[in-house]
C-alpha cells in the first residue's frame, strides 16, 4: 500500500481488525521493521535513521497500557520528558501546559493506578506531546472510552489539528473519522481499497439507500437469505444481547422492504427505517467487497 500525508493534515487510516493499521503506525514510528517497501517520515527513513524519526514523532495508543501505574502522572511525565530529551529548563513549564491541555491539573500527583480509563488516555496524549513533535500518531485513541471521555478526547485531537500538527489517526469509529479527518484511507487485508475525503467516500455510495432493521432472534440462515436477496449489495449486523440491527445497503429505489420482511418472518421485527448512507456505510461497502 502507498499513501502520503501532507504537513498539518489529519489523515485517518480505517480498516477492520488485522487490516494492518497498527502495523503501519509501528513501522512509521520505528518500532517495527518492514519486510519490503520504503517509508519516509519528514524525509527520514525510519529503518536507517530511527533516531531522527523518534525525536520528531509522538506515538499515542489506546487502552490501559503505556504508563507506569505505580507512579504519579507527574512522575510519568517527568521521566518521559527526560527520555524524549525535553530541555531541563522547559520541562516544568511544558508539563504544566500539557496537564492543563488534557484537563489533569490538580490530579497530577495521584498515582496512575487510581485513574479512570479516560484520564489515562488523556495522560497518554500529554506524554506523546511532551517533546512537541510535529508529527503525531494516534492509534485508536478513543477505544474503550465512555461517550463523554471520547468526545473530550476528540476535542483535544481537533485542537491539535488546528494548531498545525500533522496527525495520523487510526480508528474503528467512522463518525470520528468523519468529524476529524481531512482525508482517510480504507485498508483491507494490507491494501488500500479507497482514499479521499470523507465526503468523497460517502459520494461513492450516494446512489444507495440503507435500510436499517431492528429485530430479535434473527437466525444465521435468515441472515444468509437476506444477503442473497436480489438488490442487496451488503449487509452489516450489530448484535446486542438478543437484539440485532441489520444495515442493508442497496441501490437507491430498490423495492426491498417487503422482501426483507418476508425473509425475516420468523424473527420479531420492531422497526424498519430507510436513511441516507453515512461514512460507515461507505466503509462497510468497501471492506465487504471481495
Amino acid at each position, binding site marked *: 500500500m502507498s499513501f502520503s500525508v501532507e504537513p498539518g493534515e489529519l489523515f485517518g487510516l480505517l480498516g477492520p481488525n488485522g487490516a494492518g493499521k497498527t502495523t503501519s503506525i*509501528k513501522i512509521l*514510528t*520505528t*518500532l*517495527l*521493521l518492514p519486510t519490503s517497501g520504503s517509508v519516509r517520515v519528514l524525509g527520514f527513513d525510519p529503518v536507517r535513521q530511527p*533516531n531522527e524519526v*523518534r*525525536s520528531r514523532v509522538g*506515538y499515542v*495508543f489506546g*487502552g490501559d*497500557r*503505556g*504508563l*507506569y*501505574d*505505580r*507512579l504519579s502522572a507527574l*512522575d510519568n511525565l*517527568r*521521566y*518521559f520528558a*527526560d*527520555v*524524549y*530529551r525535553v530541555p*531541563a529548563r522547559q520541562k516544568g513549564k511544558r508539563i504544566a501546559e500539557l496537564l492543563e491541555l488534557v484537563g489533569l491539573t490538580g490530579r497530577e500527583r495521584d498515582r496512575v493506578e487510581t485513574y479512570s480509563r479516560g484520564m489515562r488516555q488523556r495522560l497518554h496524549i500529554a*506524554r506523546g506531546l511532551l517533546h512537541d513533535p510535529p508529527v503525531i500518531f494516534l492509534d485508536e485513541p478513543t477505544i474503550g472510552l465512555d461517550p463523554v471521555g471520547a468526545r473530550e478526547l476528540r476535542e483535544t485531537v481537533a485542537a491539535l489539528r488546528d494548531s498545525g500538527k500533522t496527525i495520523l489517526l487510526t480508528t474503528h469509529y467512522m463518525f470520528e473519522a468523519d468529524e476529524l479527518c481531512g482525508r482517510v484511507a480504507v485498508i483491507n487485508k494490507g491494501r488500500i481499497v479507497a482514499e479521499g475525503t470523507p465526503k468523497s467516500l460517502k459520494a461513492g455510495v450516494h446512489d444507495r439507500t440503507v435500510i436499517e432493521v431492528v429485530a430479535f432472534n434473527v437466525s444465521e440462515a435468515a441472515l444468509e437469505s437476506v444477503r442473497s436477496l436480489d438488490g442487496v449489495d451488503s449487509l452489516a449486523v450489530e448484535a446486542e444481547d438478543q437484539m440485532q440491527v441489520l444495515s442493508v445497503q442497496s441501490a437507491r429505489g430498490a423495492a426491498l422492504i417487503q422482501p426483507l420482511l418476508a425473509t425475516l418472518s420468523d424473527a420479531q421485527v420492531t422497526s424498519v427505517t430507510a436513511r441516507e448512507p453515512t461514512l460507515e456505510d461507505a466503509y462497510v461497502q468497501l471492506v465487504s467487497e471481495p
Partner: protein
Amino acid sequence: MIRAFVSGLRVDLLQLIRSPFDMVGMLVWPLVFASIAFLLLGHETGERTLFTAALGAAVMIMWGWVILGAGFALDTQREQGTLELVVGAPTPLVVLISPVMIARAVFGVYGLVLTLLWGRLVFGIPFLIDDWAAFFFAAVGCILAIGTLGLIAASTFVLYRAAFYFGISLQYPVYIACGLILPFSVLPGWLRPVSWLLAPTWGFRALREAASAQAPWPDIGVCFGLSAVYILIAIPCLAFFEHLARDRATLKLA
C-alpha cells in the same frame, strides 16, 4: 543522557519500593540466603570464615536481584506497554535499560548490610572489616560490575517475551561458575577461566580481601575494568537485539 539515566534510576526505585510483593521478597531473601550459609557452616567454623560466607551470600543476592529483578522489570515493562515507548525514544537504549540493572545492584548493598546485620544479631558474627575505605570501594566496584554484566543479559531480555524465566536460567549457573555455592576445588578445572570472566567472582574477592585488608585493590580494579568492558559489549548487544526485536515484533506482549 545523564538526566535520562538518573530519571530512570528514580523511576525504577520508586516502582520497586511501591510494590509490597517486591519489598517482602527483598526483606526475606537476604535473611534466607545468610541463614542457609551460617547454618551449613555451623558455629564451630571460625568467625572469619562465617563472615566471608556472609559476603558470599550478599554477592549471590546482588546477582540474583540483578538478573531476576531485571528480567521481571522488563517483563513488566513489556506487559504495561512502556517497553515500546522506551525503545521508540531518541535516547540510546543502553541509557534507559542500565538504570534497571544498577537500581537492582544498589539494592544489593542493602542486601549486604542486612546479611551482615542478621549474622551479627542472630548468629553473633562480628563485623570483621579491617579496611573500611577499601571495603566501600569494593562494594561500589562489585555493584557496578554485577549491574553491567546484567546489562549484557538484559540485551537479550529486550528480545525475548519470557525474560524473567530466562533470568532464572542464568542465576544458578553463575553462582556455581563463580564458586559461590561450591568451592573451586570440587568444580571441573575448565570452570576456572569462565569464572574470571564473571563479575561476581571479582566482586566477592574484592569484598573478601578488603574485609581482611589483604591487598584488595587489584581485585577492585578488575571490578571497575570489567564494568567498562561489559558496557562496551552491552552497547552493540543492545543495538543488535533491539534490531531483532523490531524485526520479530516482540516488543509488545501480544
